[in-house]
């Protein structure tokens, strides 16, 4: 920490540390709810609170039972010996396993769709020749702004009419729409620093527009594209309102399963899943940060 200059008065010194203390409390407010699920998920009791045993760090009070429950809940024969048949059973029958499979399948499909369309659109939008740029941009960003209940209700009626509700395709399309604003925002931000003369240089050296795109433009904006894609993925992975309105039990995702878990039968299995999700978000956050640094290096912006 930087030392305080010698001319600071006592009052200023007190305020300086008091301010840091207040900020510390706010950081605690931000991070504590994310961290609190970790110890609670190892609770041996079926409660959402710390037992006296946990507080005295009694090893008996901790268990992996809720993690096992993720794999076992819904299985045909959860107590069978651990072998290929058991694995097949949990893969096919366990409720949470199905939710996890669905979440990844829907998330990845929606991400591919929204990243492909979003990147193209962002490149078009970043060109100054684009007519009605402002209007188009505000339409494309609006899925992020419009309340999810309205979006989901509208899609419910429309997708029912065209036989898309209660199908994977319907949920994927809904999630792709909700993810595109994030792709556009991140890719546009990357393109702001993009040197357009590179494209002209490539053209003058005889590269066609497609070759220029893949060999010159794409490598430079790829960090932005990937982080936009990750944003789109996490949006789909975390989305529950559209799933509530559009999906059948067959398309239950992780958040949907958590939703009914919280509403109906509150069990620490939710906390175990939550812990896994926190780990996932830490991984994604790390990837994003590495990408951001790479992008800055590529574009010649050194962090000061």
């Amino acid at each position, binding site marked *: 920490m930087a030392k305080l200059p010698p001319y600071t008065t006592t009052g200023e010194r007190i305020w300086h540390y008091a301010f840091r203390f207040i900020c510390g409390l*706010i950081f605690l407010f*931000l991070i504590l709810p994310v961290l609190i699920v970790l110890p609670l998920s190892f609770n041996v009791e079926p409660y959402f609170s710390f037992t006296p045993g946990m507080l005295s760090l009694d090893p008996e009070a901790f268990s992996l039972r809720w993690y096992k429950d993720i794999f076992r809940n819904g299985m045909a024969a959860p107590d069978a010996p651990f072998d290929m048949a058991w694995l097949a059973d949990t893969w096919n029958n366990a409720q949470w396993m199905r939710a996890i499979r669905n979440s990844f399948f829907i998330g990845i499909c929606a991400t591919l769709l929204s990243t492909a369309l979003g990147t*193209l659109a962002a490149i078009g939008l970043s060109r100054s020749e684009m007519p009605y740029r402002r209007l188009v941009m505000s339409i494309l960003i609006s899925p992020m702004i*419009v309340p999810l209940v*309205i979006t989901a*209700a509208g899609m419910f009626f429309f997708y029912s009419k065209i036989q898309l509700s209660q199908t994977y395709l319907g949920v994927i399309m809904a999630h792709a*729409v909700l993810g595109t604003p994030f792709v556009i925002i991140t890719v546009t931000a990357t393109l702001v620093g993009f040197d357009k003369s590179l494209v002209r240089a490539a053209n003058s050296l005889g590269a066609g527009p497609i070759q220029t795109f893949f060999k010159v433009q794409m490598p430079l904006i790829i960090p932005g594209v990937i982080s936009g894609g990750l944003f789109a993925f996490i949006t789909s992975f*975390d989305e529950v309102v559209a799933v509530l309105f559009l999906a059948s039990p067959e398309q239950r995702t992780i958040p949907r399963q958590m939703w009914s878990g919280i509403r109906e039968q509150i069990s620490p299995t939710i906390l175990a899943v*939550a812990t896994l999700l926190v780990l996932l978000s830490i991984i994604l*956050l790390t990837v994003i940060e590495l990408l951001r640094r790479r992008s800055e290096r590529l574009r010649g912006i050194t962090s000061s």
Partner: protein
Amino acid sequence: MDVSQPITAADGTPLKKKLAQAMFRSKLRATGLVVPLLAFVLASFVFPILALMWQGIHNDTFARLMPNLTEELRVWDGVSDPTEEMYALLVADLRQNRADKTIGKVASRVNQELAGTRSLFTSTARKAKKLEPPFKEALIKTKKKWGDIKVWQAMKLTNQSLTPGFYATSLDARYTVDQGFVMKEEKRQIYTKLFVRTLMISGSVMLLCLLLGYPVAYLLATLPLKYSNLLMIMVLLPFWTSLLVRTTAWIAILQSQGVVNDLLVWIGITGDESRFSLIYNMTGTIIAMTHILLPFMILPLYSVMKTIPPSYMRAARSLGATPTAAFIKVYMPQTVPGIGAGGLLVFILAIGYYITPALVGGQDGQLISNMIAYHMQKSLNWSLAAALGGLLLLGVLVLYWAYDRIIGIDNMKLG
């Protein structure tokens, strides 16, 4: 060189024309890149919402299912006694709906207009086959209510497919045959109160976010980068963590047997019997929403504060300003764009919140979105849901427009 001749390109076409062609081509290229996504968003997002909005002013259930009566009702003045012919047509329609098993839809539709008429329709339809003329007497004999002009007025209103009725209900008014719009009595006003509560909760969440986010953003912007990058993780990790995880965590923290209450009992601030109810009410909604939306306030504030040179504050100090005065007069005005961006964004997102209030809001922490979901899923009054949604959407779009005017969507940043 002859100046009167237009300048031409290499192939002989005038340069102006050539330029216009080139411009047109590049415009076309840019548009071509955007069109796939625009078509996708228009088809699977904008159009469904427009169709939903249409439902809010248009409901032809009654006119469609009561084809005989509909014309008569349209020409009826709404105050004179219904004629025998109208009763006869009513019986004919009831019989048909009974046969088609659609009477439930008709009954629910009229019931939305005048509560307590559902069974009137369903039970009469069951007996309609045996009724004999004169139908007016026969109907009034089966159910006295058929002589009530209010029932007929309700039918006349529901018969009108294009109706302002649902928007009137959303604003706690009633659309009537003879008096136009009438406000409901004070204690039966639920939707306007809910709108006010939604605005109040969103406003409080926005203020709390500003109160908590401002110091943190300031600290992050003024610390050396190696510390601030580390602390930034504390902001970004919650931002990247699932909404449901965070809501679950708040349940674990705030419930009566939760961490906060346990701690308070342990310290001795409160007794074991008088634990605070911090969740499943408005307090729970505000706390959880503040936590969830705080990063949306910190990030824009931080990016604005980052651009303010620290030398301004030093200059103010050297010119004799006290630290407080320098901060208020020099630093704060420069952060106004950040306050505007963060505040508007938080408010826009808060106003349409659904998940968190539904899970931790209890009775008095529900927002307008929850009411829309209720009418969509439970009461199945879809047109009312659409009308409530229309009002909410209007509010959000006005704010969005303001955001674009003041800050510009291009300047929206994530992480």
